[in-house]
């Protein structure tokens, strides 16, 4: 009898143990709408032409010597701004280690040659050459484009390196003779070079910089004194200063929003969204629409990438940006080819959702270029003061859904 009792308990307990499993999932095709719940999702898409309350453009966020890249532009006889890269290196040493892991040094007896390796991150155009010039070691970040004219001459040219048309992203090395820097010792063993782009037609290259952890490195090949014997050694140096300089650009028009360029410009936009959308509905997609006032300017063949980024506090030009993960940047940035005047659509869904979730967040967005400050590409867009080309927001949302409401 006890066996039956235990059997019965086991049977019903097994039923209870499986009580949490269920599979009610069923496709509603054919069953809807009659046998579907009455509460159905509706989606509304609307264009808000007056969503941007105010906007401003500011310049100077990333200066050329702070940028992660340095752009050289060539436009022989054209109207495009040309640019020059300037690099002043850290001083070479007077003595060098004879052997790695040893503290014994030897005096530099003679210099055999120099080499400078530059990293090409992007390029546009064909038949490009990099021309290297000797610069005075007094160059720094305050050196103006025009001040360099005397030094970008045939007499100071150190080398010309052709960039094969097949080269898109690689490094190239220029080699100089031992007498490339005749005042090296007098200059405290420091060297400075300038780089210019030459092109049959128009073109550009983007060189790596110290700030981008892809600096142009100079190498000196020397002979060391090792107990009376001359031995060859190599010494590399990073830049103390690297930057690119260009003719001054005109200040931004008050009626236009500017994004990108060098020094970089950003545009701050302040929004107002209807409470029925932001507070009562669920936004599934929000797009900021910028109408170009002119085609994007910059090096021919270059592309400007724009990103809309939230600000943690709206204090105008210096509003701190809310960090964005790199993979998010890659997904959300929008490419604007130079010379093209298409309407720009930036995804701001996550920003609008954050506003809906936290009413204390500033409803402001900074539009900036990514990467920033390393190139001349710049977008010019209509502002809220431009009735015909003011920014707008297109929002797709689900209106309030009252589940269970009768």
């Amino acid at each position: 009898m006890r066996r039956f009792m235990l059997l019965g308990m086991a049977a019903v307990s097994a039923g209870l143990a499986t009580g949490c499993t269920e599979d009610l999932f069923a496709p509603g095709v054919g069953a809807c709408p009659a046998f579907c719940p009455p509460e159905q999702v509706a989606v509304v898409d609307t264009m808000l032409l007056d969503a941007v309350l105010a906007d401003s453009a500011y310049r100077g966020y990333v200066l050329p010597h702070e940028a992660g890249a340095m752009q050289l532009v060539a436009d022989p006889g054209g109207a495009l701004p040309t640019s020059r890269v300037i690099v002043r290196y850290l001083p070479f040493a007077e003595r060098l280690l004879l052997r790695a892991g040893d503290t014994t040094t030897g005096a530099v007896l003679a210099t055999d040659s120099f080499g400078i390796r530059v990293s090409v991150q992007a390029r546009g155009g064909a038949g490009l050459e990099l021309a290297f010039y000797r610069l005075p070691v007094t160059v720094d970040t305050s050196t103006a484009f025009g001040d360099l004219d005397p030094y970008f001459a045939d007499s100071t040219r150190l080398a010309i390196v052709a960039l094969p048309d097949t080269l898109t992203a690689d490094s190239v090395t220029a080699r100089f003779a031992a007498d490339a820097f005749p005042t090296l010792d007098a200059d405290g063993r420091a060297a400075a070079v300038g780089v210019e782009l030459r092109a049959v037609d128009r073109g550009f290259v983007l060189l790596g910089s110290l700030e981008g952890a892809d600096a142009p490195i100079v190498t000196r090949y020397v002979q060391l004194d090792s107990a009376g014997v001359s031995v060859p050694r190599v010494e590399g140096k990073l830049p103390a200063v690297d930057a690119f300089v260009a003719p001054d650009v005109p200040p931004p028009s008050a009626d236009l929003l500017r994004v990108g360029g060098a020094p970089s410009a950003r545009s701050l936009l302040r929004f107002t969204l209807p409470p029925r959308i932001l507070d009562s509905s669920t936004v599934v997609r929000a797009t900021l629409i910028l109408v170009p006032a002119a085609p994007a300017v910059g090096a021919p063949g270059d592309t400007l990438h724009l990103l809309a980024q939230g600000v943690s506090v709206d204090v105008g030009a210096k509003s701190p940006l809310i960090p964005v993960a790199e993979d998010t940047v890659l997904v959300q940035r929008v490419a604007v080819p130079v010379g093209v005047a298409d309407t720009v659509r930036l995804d701001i869904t996550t920003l609008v959702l954050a506003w809906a979730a936290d009413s204390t967040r500033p409803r402001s967005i900074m539009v900036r270029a990514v990467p920033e400050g390393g190139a001349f590409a710049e977008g010019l867009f209509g502002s809220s003061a431009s009735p015909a080309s003011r920014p707008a927001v297109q929002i797709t949302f689900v209106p309030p859904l009252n589940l269970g409401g009768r």
Partner: protein
Amino acid sequence: MPRACAVWVVIAAVGAATPLAGQTSVYGIRGLGFPGRALTPRARAMGGGLGAFDPASPLNPAAVAGFVQVTAVAVAAADFRGYQVGGADVGGLHATRFPLMEVAGRLPGVRLGYSLGMSQYTDRSFDVSLTDTIVLRGADVEVTDRSSSSGGASDIRGALAWEPRAGLRIGAGVHVVTGSAKLAVSRTFSDSAYQSFRRVNEERVSGFGVSGGLLWAPTAGLQVALGGRYDTEATLEVDSTPTGTVNLPISALAGLEIRPVRALRWASTFIWRSWADADPDLPGRAFNTWELGSGVELGGPESGASRVPLRLGARYATLPFSPTDDQAHEVDVALGTGISFAGNRGLVDLVLERAFRSGAGARERAWQFSASLTVRP
């Protein structure tokens, strides 16, 4: 009472504290859900015909007088379901629930039985998915909508029944109808530029009711049952915000049991409910319902003939909620048995049912299995 049994009762009580529900049905998506059947597997196996007389089935409070000792009953049920509607043929749906639990007994020294238990009132569990293509921003976008609900309402009943003389039992009960369903709607887009949407609300229903009934045996082998129940207006809340009221039905039942010999019992129960009272309060249609169940029981522990009974039954019922003006109906056939152990202090009853539902443009078929454990310490 063996110690193991006591432990099991505690475990069962804890398990039953989860939201009670039972069968689910395509006919339970609209309205308040699919109405539950407050029946033990023994009564279900007889097509529900024993419902008006079964002490453990909380239909007729007068039947509570039939408890002669402290008794605990717990029921587990599972269903396997498929339906056809609008050209769609859906199968493989299943759910497992605990539709009934009860503790009952008789007060010593008086002919007064008592019962406290809970049963399924309505079940609102479903999960429906629909794929469609809509035009957004000038482009076709495939969307997948999913609507689901999990939960329902339970009927908590306390009942007393008095047996003033042999052959007459009178009972009354009070009911609390309470429960909630977690309703969820979501939409996902094939275009990742659109964020998926999901909304979850909890709908709570609460109401009260009273019931009364009598059992009268004018002669040996014959018993008649009458009963009624009045439920108040139920209040509905969504996320703790009142959203409205729904009229719960008035119910009336009548039953007839004939037992020509101890080993044979034939019972029928008729129930009418005024679910149409809820029609103005619901988005779909609500109809008055009636059901008639009938079945026989051969043998059984109390028959003296066979310890293992054989039960057969059939039932016809109209269903309360429909998306159209066409009221759906249901036909069930049932086969069941049971076994006692521990000197008839423990009972396990089993029933297998086949349900056929149709109406309002849909057809549904279900296998339903229920098992109960009854313990009399």
